[in-house]
């Protein structure tokens, strides 16, 4: 067959044309996306990667709510300069319990995937509430309201954990039962700090 003939046939038959367009535009996804979704080491937790505890989970949701990933990435790329600056590069299995993942695509501020433990809780707290109280030339906005609200104001932590369990996060019933107690008395900023402090390279030896 000849391409010009095919073209004539296609442009005179709209059903065929629609099918052809769908087919051609699907090829990229069929080659690139579909096998990756089914690739085991991209969807199973890497060694040492644990599901978030209740406090970190709330903190992560706050990280999403406040749009932190707009300015901070969470992926140390496998480049010499990044590994030297931030630490071990990020691996796919580390994001197995991230729904959705927060890799980000822009760094107005630094990458945060290895930030845990670099600064103290106190510093993180001061910096979140009023960045310029500790970094005079910082351009990060302050989030003072995080100190005013309770971390789990609507008492939804158990529902959140159950939803994630349905998606395959291995929370036990006892963990879910204990979750509200872990959050009792914490402000939003405490949960967010706990989440930030949990962003470290997974400790492979700690896996049971």
């Amino acid at each position, binding site marked *: 067959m000849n*391409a010009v003939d095919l073209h004539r046939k296609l442009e005179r038959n709209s059903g065929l044309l629609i099918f052809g367009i769908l087919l051609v535009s699907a*090829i990229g996804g*069929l080659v690139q996306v579909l096998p990756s979704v089914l690739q085991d*080491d991209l969807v199973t937790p890497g060694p040492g990667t644990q599901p978030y505890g209740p406090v970190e989970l709330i903190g992560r949701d706050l990280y999403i709510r406040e749009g932190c990933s707009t300015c901070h990435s969470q992926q140390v790329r496998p480049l010499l300069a990044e590994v030297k600056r931030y*630490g071990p590069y990020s691996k*796919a299995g580390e994001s197995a319990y991230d729904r959705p993942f927060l890799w980000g695509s822009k760094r107005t501020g630094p990458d945060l995937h290895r930030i845990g433990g*670099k600064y103290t809780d106190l510093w993180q707290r*001061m910096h979140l509430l009023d960045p310029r109280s500790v970094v005079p030339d910082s351009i990060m906005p302050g989030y003072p309201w995080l100190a005013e609200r309770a971390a789990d104001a609507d008492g939804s932590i158990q529902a959140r954990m159950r939803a994630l369990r349905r998606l395959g996060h291995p929370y036990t019933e006892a963990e879910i039962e204990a979750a509200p107690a872990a959050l009792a008395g914490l402000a939003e900023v405490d949960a967010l700090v706990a989440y930030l402090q949990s962003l470290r390279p997974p400790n492979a030896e700690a896996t049971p």
Partner: protein
Amino acid sequence: MAELPSTFWSGWISVLTVGSLIGVFWLIYSIYFAAGGEEEEPSPVWDGNLREGEHPAPLWWFWLIFGSLVISVIYLMLYPGLGAFRGALNWSQGGEISQRLERYQTEFGPLRRLVAEAQLDTLREDAKLMASAQRIYDRNCAVCHGYEAQGQANLFPNLADAAWQWGGEPAQVEHSIRHGRQAVMVGWEAALGEQAIDQLTDYTLALGNGTAAGHPAEGQYMQFCAACHGADGSGNPQLGAPNLTDDASLYGQSAAAIRQSIAQGRNGEMPAFGERLDDTQIRLLVAWLTRPTTPE
């Protein structure tokens, strides 16, 4: 390298990719090199003489597609892309970074070792090394301790003055950086009551002024505070108990700040940087932080 789920998917990728390339090749071949088939019915005519297919497809379009095709084929032969085939170069992202780290180690490793083992005085004499040290400081220490090492917010210690809570000897400073520090001063309000706290606050102020001798709270100070801060108030760097007689005061010099320290306690924390910084960086930081200060 990440493994693909099964040979089926490897084949799936290869077949779709190669199939697409062949499709594109067939497209440009039949447009540019094969004669078009005869039309069963003549195409409509517009504006007197304008028909479809009157002009050949543009040549830049041919070269664009042909060029992409050639580049794709070469790329897929050299680099991973066709399913499980790793390409003639056997390149992988993980291999690339470990190679670069190795090259970095070969190129700079001996030099860095030299710095890590050098005398502090020698390091201090090298202006470039000291500039590096300052950059390491700016990246890792400055957001707490301040860009001038002046301390911040009455919470993060001044590193530029002569007072060192955990000791200012190079070995002590290195320990602080490598392993971090956790200060533990308990709050005394519950145990001693407000009146005693007030008296001890006054005593601490007197220690700073050098007028503590014979102070009414001396007995209480000796009983509760002297174990860590010393009978003369000169502190104990082993425990991170600060000197109470000098001018430096991390949490503030005012009676209110001192009172709060005594009543509520203080739990200053320095994170450990032994995992984050290597021996060379720590050595440079120690040399820079403990450099003799120029009198102002």
